[in-house]
């Protein structure tokens, strides 16, 4: 295996390389420069008080340790607040249940391969998934509070929409990834759309769907803790009231409860996922 068989010399290679690397470096440098200019412009355009950044950690530290500590956990356990914790869980639970019930047909409609009607059902399904996902949950909550009034009903329906957007999308993707063989087979027996779905599609996606539902519960629960901030029921309401009244110790108590609840819910779903395996 002789050297130089490939026909180029080290000199050629060196020249090529230098040109190539220098060009690459130049492009990267220009891109970085442009980005820095853009970043500086953004800071100027939005009047960002960058000078306040230097004291930020100190200020946050002071605020957290002086005003928010010790966290008033007793407050968090008082009647109304404790009740709102239960309400949060309740909203989350119902929102997930109804959300999943709704997500099943929507995921089916929104799946290109097995949707019962490509001209009607598919666009409907897709639109439902996109629209529910494009609008942030808190905005949904505020709209629903106007239409339905304050209280957990608005929150529950917000969570239904959230589940639809999150679990629904993932479930639909699972449906689109199935093996079409059994679908064709069932269709060939003359079975209608619904039967085809139940006997050919559902068994294939069931396992993945359960995982998705558990994963969805996590983010649903997280959202439910904050919806009360705009009046849609649950613990968030007290977060708003305490911060508006500058009752930071109580606010911290609520925040800690929220964190504890979220962690507890995550541990639960972790075990649920284990059991499914």
């Amino acid at each position, binding site marked *: *295996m002789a050297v130089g068989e490939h*026909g*180029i010399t*080290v000199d050629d290679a*060196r020249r090529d*390389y230098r040109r190539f690397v220098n060009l690459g470096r130049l492009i990267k440098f220009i891109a970085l420069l442009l980005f820095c200019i853009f970043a500086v412009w953004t800071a100027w355009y939005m009047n960002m008080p960058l000078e306040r950044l230097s004291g930020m950690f100190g200020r946050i530290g002071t605020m957290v340790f002086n005003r928010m500590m010790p966290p008033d956990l007793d407050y968090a356990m008082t009647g109304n607040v404790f009740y709102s914790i239960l309400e949060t869980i309740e909203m989350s639970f119902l929102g997930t249940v109804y959300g999943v019930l709704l997500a099943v047909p929507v995921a089916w409609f929104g799946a290109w391969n097995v949707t019962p009607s490509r001209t009607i059902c598919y666009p409907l399904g897709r639109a439902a998934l996109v629209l529910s996902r494009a609008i942030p949950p808190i905005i949904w909550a505020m709209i629903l509070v106007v239409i339905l009034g304050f209280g957990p009903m608005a929150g529950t329906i917000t969570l239904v929409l959230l589940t639809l957007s999150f679990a629904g999308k993932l479930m639909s993707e699972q449906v689109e990834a199935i093996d079409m063989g059994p679908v064709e087979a069932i269709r060939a027996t003359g079975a209608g759309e619904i039967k085809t779905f139940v006997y050919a599609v559902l068994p294939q996606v069931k396992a993945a769907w359960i995982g998705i539902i558990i994963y969805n519960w996590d983010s649903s629960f997280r959202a439910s803790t904050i919806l009360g901030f705009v009046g849609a029921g649950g613990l968030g309401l007290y977060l708003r009231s305490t911060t508006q009244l500058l009752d930071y110790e109580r606010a911290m108590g609520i925040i800690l409860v929220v964190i504890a609840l979220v962690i507890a819910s995550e541990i639960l779903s972790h075990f649920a996922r284990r059991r499914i395996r």
Partner: protein
Amino acid sequence: MALLEVVGLKKTYPTGETALRGIDLTVNGAEVIAVLGLSGSGKSTLLRCINRLVEPSEGLVVLDGVRVSELDRRGLQRARRHMGMIFQEYNLVDRLTVLENVLSGCLGVASTWRAVTRAFRKDDIERAMELCSRVGILDQIRKRADQLSGGQRQRVGIARALMQQPKILLVDEPTSSLDPKIGAEVMDLMCAVADEHNVPILVSVHDLDVATGYSKRIVGLREGRIVFDAETREVDRSMLQSIYTDQDAA
């Protein structure tokens, strides 16, 4: 003074498995020494204990007067610069180009800034290219490593190891993942280049023909112990039998 001295090297893994049961080995000059043994005999562990990719349980490793096995983290990094390693699975960084992979051989001496910006020194780049030319992959230097064939990748591995200008090459079954013809080319290349640079090779193999074909000295390993250590021409049948356990003896 010997270049490499291994004294009483032992290794027991946390699982309880004992890979090395007391190895004594000396490497003097620029020779090719084959470590011959079956899978599980401890060849790979031996090589890795020398540059402490695997920490020995007991024993001493001395490279050119430096007690490698006793060095702290910083000292070990410095010592490793002098030991080039070539792997069975090539162990190249797939997403980087061939040239970058070869250049990674001088990371031991490069400053942190150079490592971050990947701005290697001109003479390092020069030397890398010459090594690439020597091993026959100069026309591939801008290709990503995962676009090469097995034989080509191993040549990159050889270039990378030599980039370090090492005092010794530790080679772990370099041709076990290659088909025989390519493997032979790689072995030829490796031994030739090492000879040109006057670097000794300690290579582990499980194939007798490879051992006899390329090495001047063969060390037989069985179940973590050296069963013979002799010049290749003196190795006879009974010595070869001894690397097999009673169960595999034909």
